[in-house]
């Protein structure tokens, strides 16, 4: 599997450059600055946790990484090379897939049509191969997540529950990802068993040289599977630590109280 991924991008087998590197990313919405000078990198095959309270700028960062939203200033490097324009078609070409918090599905379309929207399996004239797409959709729904209650890939997404729709979004991202999978609060609507399966899957992805970014409120989920944790606070990166250099308590302090909390926690640890 690793070799296929490598061939897709023609990258050398031993790569020292990180997969994705952001430098000095700032984002303004009118007068509001939601991201201030954020820099970080995501290594090849690394699972990175992106943590922070509501309004910390996580979702904006996710949208910038996936190319849906453009940054006001900053640089975007892919395997060491700077991208001049970061657009969704460009990131799609690089193999970046995102599961958005609001799941980004079309409720009036079937599961199959949602999974393949914009990337349909067609003949040379652009006509859809519906039966083939139905079969693939059925297969990836079976292989990726638990699909309790979904009867057919022909069902409308609008007729699914929140968790089932989330499963469809995950199935789509997993099917098309080739290098980076970004998950924005993927477990918020999932049942316990489906969550467990998804987290296991992220760890398994490392074996396929696919990196992932997990955005979550649930620090225990993040701590279980992530190699590294980035904590955001009011649009700034305040922590960027490898898993072995931190723990859930420190991360909790950082998320809830920001840098103040981390200082207090560390002082407390030093005294003890």
């Amino acid at each position, binding site marked *: 599997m690793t070799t296929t991924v490598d061939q897709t991008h023609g990258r050398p087998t031993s790569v020292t450059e990180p997969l994705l590197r952001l430098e000095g990313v700032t984002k303004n919405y009118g007068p509001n600055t939601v991201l201030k000078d954020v820099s970080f990198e995501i290594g090849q095959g690394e699972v990175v946790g992106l943590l922070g309270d509501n309004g910390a700028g996580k979702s904006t960062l996710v949208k910038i990484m996936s190319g849906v939203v453009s940054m006001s200033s900053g640089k975007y490097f892919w395997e060491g090379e700077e991208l001049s324009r970061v657009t*969704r078609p460009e990131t*799609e070409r690089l193999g970046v897939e995102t599961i958005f918090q609001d799941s*980004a599905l*079309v409720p009036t379309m079937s599961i199959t049509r949602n999974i393949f*929207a*914009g990337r349909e399996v067609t003949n040379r004239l652009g*006509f859809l191969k519906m039966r083939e797409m139905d079969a693939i959709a059925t297969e990836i729904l079976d292989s990726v997540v638990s699909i309790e209650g979904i009867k*057919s890939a022909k069902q409308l997404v609008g007729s699914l529950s929140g968790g089932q729709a989330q499963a469809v979004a995950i199935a789509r991202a997993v099917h098309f990802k080739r290098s980076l999978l970004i998950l924005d609060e993927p477990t918020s609507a999932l049942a316990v068993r489906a969550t467990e399966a998804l987290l296991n899957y992220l760890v398994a992805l490392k074996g396929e040289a696919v990196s992932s970014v997990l955005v979550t409120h649930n620090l225990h989920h993040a701590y279980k599977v992530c190699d590294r944790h980035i904590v955001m606070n009011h649009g700034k990166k305040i922590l960027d630590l490898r898993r072995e250099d931190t*723990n859930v*308590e420190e991360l909790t302090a950082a998320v809830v109280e920001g840098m103040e909390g981390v200082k207090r926690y560390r002082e407390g640890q030093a005294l003890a």
Partner: protein
Amino acid sequence: MTISTPEGTEQGTTPAAPLALEEQAPTRRRLADSQPTTGVERFKDNLYYLRGRGALEISGVYLLILVGFAVAAAANPIGFPFLNSNNLSGVLSQNIPVLAILAIGAGVLMIAGEFDLSIGATIGLCGVVFIKVANAHNWQLAFLATIGVGMTVMLINGLIVVKTKIPSFIATLGMSFFWTGASIYINGSNPATFFPGVRTDAMVKVMAGNYGYFRSQLVWLVLIGVAAWFMLHRHRIGNKVYAVGGNPAAAAAVSIKPTVVRLQAFAFLGLMVGIASSLYVARTSGMQPGTTDSYTLLAIAAAVVGGCSLTGGRGSVTGMVVGAALILTIENGLVLGNTPGFYVQLFLGLAIVIAAVFNKFMEGKAT
């Protein structure tokens, strides 16, 4: 939102239970195992997932009405001449195709999440253009020019809506008056008519020929309907239209450009309006600007009766055509039954509202 802490976990001190990667998910029912395999099963499955999409139910209703009218006509061929070839060919197969073609245009635009209130005014302008160009040159050139004008008009409407982001309701309402004014400016307020000899036999044969039980217009509808069905339901272009109308943000996230798709839908409506107005003037031989306004709301009503939603993302070509046929067949039945003029409007209006409510109800049953 709060940070959740699983109950009973000793926070932070030890990493929570390591993930058991080797543990396979418990055996569960696979989706693939319950899918239809034989042809009959597959047909049933497809039929099941057609429920609530608009076309299936309204087609059933239309069939019932047709059977009812046919029985009434068989019982009383003189008093209710519904099955008379003059009625089938002269009224139904001339009226239904024009409205159905307009409904396909209006419906596709509605699926993309916009609508256009200047359809009637544009028919007036297109009709005038057809007659003027045919008088000056020939009907073939007139046909192409009419399509060109229809598409240009709708692209201008579309650009205003897409670029300024004002609701298409108000933008196209304003443009409706503008295009009526434009056709009066070009033509004057008297009806435009063909010069003697311009409406050639060939033109009549292609655009309004009488072939016994049907007319040329019906052939146009079948060709356009089949092409539109394949493009909307079996081509990636159609998927884009549904995605943009159903959830523009989701469409943008998969590299579909909502503004481009909406402009294409406006242009497609322009094409349909161009063809429909050509068929219209080929039959009536004249066009008076300002007299075609009722087509706007009839076309939108036909699309809604056929299952299109004003909020976008829903609808089907079959539904649009059946919606147009249903409206005009009921009107035809009322007229044949000697219903006084104001009752026709009353019953027709009622029928449209009931059909829309029925669709809304069936939409809730969609799976």
